[in-house]
């Protein structure tokens, strides 16, 4: 598995996102320019110019036409994916930490940092259907605004059928909100430390979390119970589930604090992406490469590759080897377990 190294950002990656088909890869980093790449070969397609601060988050709609980014310049921006035009700027009182499109592009949400006395607020905006053609009629104020969490919100996602909003935060909890009223429906005490990432399985039936406490958890989105726990020996920044049934794996990434990376050898930093078995919770292997902690990782929706973005400014795209797709079957093939015949 030879990785494709994508060096297009000058500073640490903050989030990467595949589009629905998995052919495009959107990356945002602490430099101010979100970028888009061909996910297959890492070729650069373009950048979106406009932000004046570190970009924390990115979301792309289902048809890969609209892009939403949130930044430390206290704005969320809406972009036209093919042309790179900035369609709208949504001003906020604090850095925007999370954005997500609702199914059908009728709404989107933003979540704020709790920096400088600001409360970690979640806002829901309405989006006019013809926003790509003209911004007239598009309101720049939210239709719903509510305060969630006791700490910085790190990620926010729409729930199934846009009925709920799921958020994770530095306050170690994952919370589920009613998307219409902003009421808290459920609070999941998933971790002992900051929850840094949440990502869905392909059909949003499960949610996988990553936390600084060194574990990732699999949460059932119907019962909100923790069904699996993946224990890793390092603070985690990101986790994702493979969509393929023949590859029931969870990939997690993280590493020691960015501050102390340079003081120790890369061996001790635990900067590799680690694979866990989805069902058995075993650590199966790891992929080395980054020389800073992994800040974000994502498995392509087709399940044949994954990409990771690190504090080192690199995005690494890995296409899985053929053996990756057969390993699970082989592990269950009893032919390998027949003891040799005795003479």
């Amino acid at each position: 598995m030879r990785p494709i190294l994508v060096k297009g950002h000058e500073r640490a990656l903050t989030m990467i996102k595949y589009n629905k088909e998995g052919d495009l890869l959107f990356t945002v980093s602490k430099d101010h320019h979100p970028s888009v790449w061909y996910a297959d070969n890492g070729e650069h397609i373009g950048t979106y110019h406009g932000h004046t601060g570190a970009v924390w988050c990115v979301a792309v709609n289902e048809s890969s036409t609209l892009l939403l980014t949130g930044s430390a310049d206290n704005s969320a921006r809406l972009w036209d994916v093919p042309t790179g035009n900035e369609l709208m700027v949504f001003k906020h009182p604090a850095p925007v930490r999370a954005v997500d499109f609702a199914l059908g592009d009728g709404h989107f949400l933003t979540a704020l940092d709790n920096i400088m006395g600001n409360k970690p607020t979640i806002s829901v905006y309405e989006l006019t259907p013809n926003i790509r053609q003209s911004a007239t009629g598009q309101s720049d104020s939210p239709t719903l605004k509510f305060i969630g969490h006791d700490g910085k919100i790190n990620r926010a996602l729409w729930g199934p059928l846009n009925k709920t909003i799921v958020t994770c935060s530095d306050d170690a909890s994952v919370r589920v909100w009613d998307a219409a009223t902003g009421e808290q429906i459920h609070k999941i005490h998933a971790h002992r430390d900051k929850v840094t990432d949440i990502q869905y399985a392909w059909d949003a039936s499960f949610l996988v979390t990553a936390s600084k406490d060194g574990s990732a958890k699999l949460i059932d989105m119907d019962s909100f119970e923790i069904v699996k726990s993946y224990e890793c020996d390092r603070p985690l920044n990101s986790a994702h589930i493979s969509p393929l049934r023949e590859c029931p794996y969870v990939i997690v990434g993280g590493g020691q604090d960015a501050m102390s990376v340079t003081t120790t050898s890369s061996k001790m930093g635990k900067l590799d992406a680690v694979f866990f078995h989805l069902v058995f919770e075993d650590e199966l292997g790891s992929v080395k490469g980054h020389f800073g902690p992994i800040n974000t990782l994502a498995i392509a929706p087709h399940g044949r590759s994954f990409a990771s973005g690190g504090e080192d400014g690199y995005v690494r795209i890995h296409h899985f080897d053929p053996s990756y797709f057969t390993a699970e079957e082989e592990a269950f093939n009893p032919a390998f377990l027949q003891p040799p015949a005795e003479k």
Partner: protein
Amino acid sequence: MPEDHEIVDDADAAEEPYLPEDDESDGELESRFPMPVMKDTLDNAIVVDGLPQVPQEKYEKLFKLVEKIFTQVGTLAEDGIMMPQDESTGLSKGFAFVEYARREAAEDALKKTQGYKLDKNHTLVVNTFQQVNDFLAVPDLAPAIVPPEYVPQEDLTSWLLDAKARDQYALRWADNTEIYWNDPTVAKLEPTYGKKGWTDTHVVWSPQGRYLACFHRLGIILWGGPSWKKLMKFGHEGVKLVDFSPCERFVVTWSPLTEQASSVQVWEVASGTRVRAFAGPKDLAQVKWPVFRWSHDDVLLARLGDDCIHVYESATMKLLPDAAGKRSSLKIDGVKDFAWCPTEKRIAYWVPELENAPARVTILDLPSRTEVRQKNLFNLQECNLHWHPQGDFLGVRIDRHTKTKKTIYTTFELFRVRDRNVAIEVLELEPKETRIIAFAWEPKGVRFALISGEGPKYDVSLFTMETVKGMGKVRLLTKLEKRAANTLFWSPVGGTLLLAALQAVGGDLEWYNVNELQTIGADEHFMCTDIEWDPTGRYVATGVSHFRHQTENGYNLWSSQGKLLGRHLKEKFYALQWRPRPPSMLDDDQEREVRKNLREASRRFEAEDLKIKFAAEIEKLEKRKEMKSLFYQLVDAKNSAWRARKAERAALRGDGGRESDQDDEYTITDEIVETVVKTVEQTA
């Protein structure tokens, strides 16, 4: 006193005239003023035994003598002495009663006159009346002693009978101390026994593995047997160090809290009694542990003194008698260090240069104190004694200054102790002035290995002491150059040498087969701090201890050829200690026989191992299959629910289901779009 109390309390009494009218009867008077009660006590009197029996004529004289003796102690009561006579014979009865005016005097007399020698045949035995009564109360016939019911002791060597012939190890991590079976066929390790806070500090195995010594504030506790029972306690407050004798019959402890005059204590394991206490060092920095070094058979123990070596017999805990039968230490002026031969009651010691007398190394037999061999040495700086594990050779490492006096180089003097006149060979390394950083004899065999050179890469040399054609001559087998190793670990059965880099962060490991003279395995355990072979030489454990590093704590288990068998990360891992085994009960011939059939046996065992391994794997697989199907039942239920909501999603997407859930419902069309990016006028 109650009587006094009554009088004071009686208000009427004060108004009464002191002397009542004479018409009052005596009885009334007595009832009002009770007569003081004479205390009828025998506390003032003592019984004197052991007097001679004398006829009437001498009675007076004896009486006078007794009176004289006892008056010296204190004032006697009136007619204080009574010395009965037999009425029929007129002889005195050989005892007397002496009464003193005061009880204190009687007590004093008890002490002072006890055992007073009247003459050659008569010694006084003095008792109080109470004591005599006590003696009389003792029945003449001793009651039959009922021995407590015999509780058979658990077999302390039960772990040796393990069907799979596995070894055990003690693991210390965080607050836990746990005992594990070493079984490479098992993937997930579970301790066979263990608990939190089993010991306050660390644990020590006895040299043959029967006991595990745990440290506590008030002393040492020994544990063992199949159920890990408490076997013995040695109460030594603040104990910091413990050392077993080689045959596990004695334990030596040291504590900084005990008075210095008795800070080193020797205990008998079987009875738990303290057999003797010795003066010891005051604080840990001064301790050169073990203070006592034992002969191989537990019979003698010795410690270094000033200009002498104190050798004690363990049976009596007294100094070893010399030829004249007088108990004395070995007087050796300036002696710096000594070492017991591992198989005989024989020591080697060395003395530095003293007032123009050369330094020397001496081998001495005990208890006869006969000198086996002595060698004078010159210009030496430091000397180290390395006995061959079977006691066949003595390797003496000698450090000398180079001519510039700036650096140190090393030579070896090798004593062939079994030779009739103990031949000595000198081993010098090439180049001559080479520093040696490690030396180790092969645990079973005639070879030794040493590491030499100036870092960071060192040379490893292997030598043999083998006798060829009746000629004993040390011979270089091979030299491995430029290795990252700085420490030597021989397999306990010999034949294999593990070279390891333990300094700094290191962790390079190299397994070297000394019989074939080739490297058989090489690997790395990053930051490894400790290495220990299991007692059978089948496995090696390498560990990263929390004492030195705060990350990556844990241990790896390797085969004797350097194949990694298991990686075990443990939070706050401190140490892994293999449980030692008693020496083999097979003699050389039987061992040779086993060796001859090794190939056959190993094939059988390997097949068995494989069977066990596969059975376990298949069982694990079945369990996993079940787990997986259970999980996917949930997943499938969710998927079908998700599919059922397709219409709702389509409605949300609008446009009558413009976007679809399924990728294969797309039609792919190629479309070429040309865009003019920039037009530039070409000027000539």
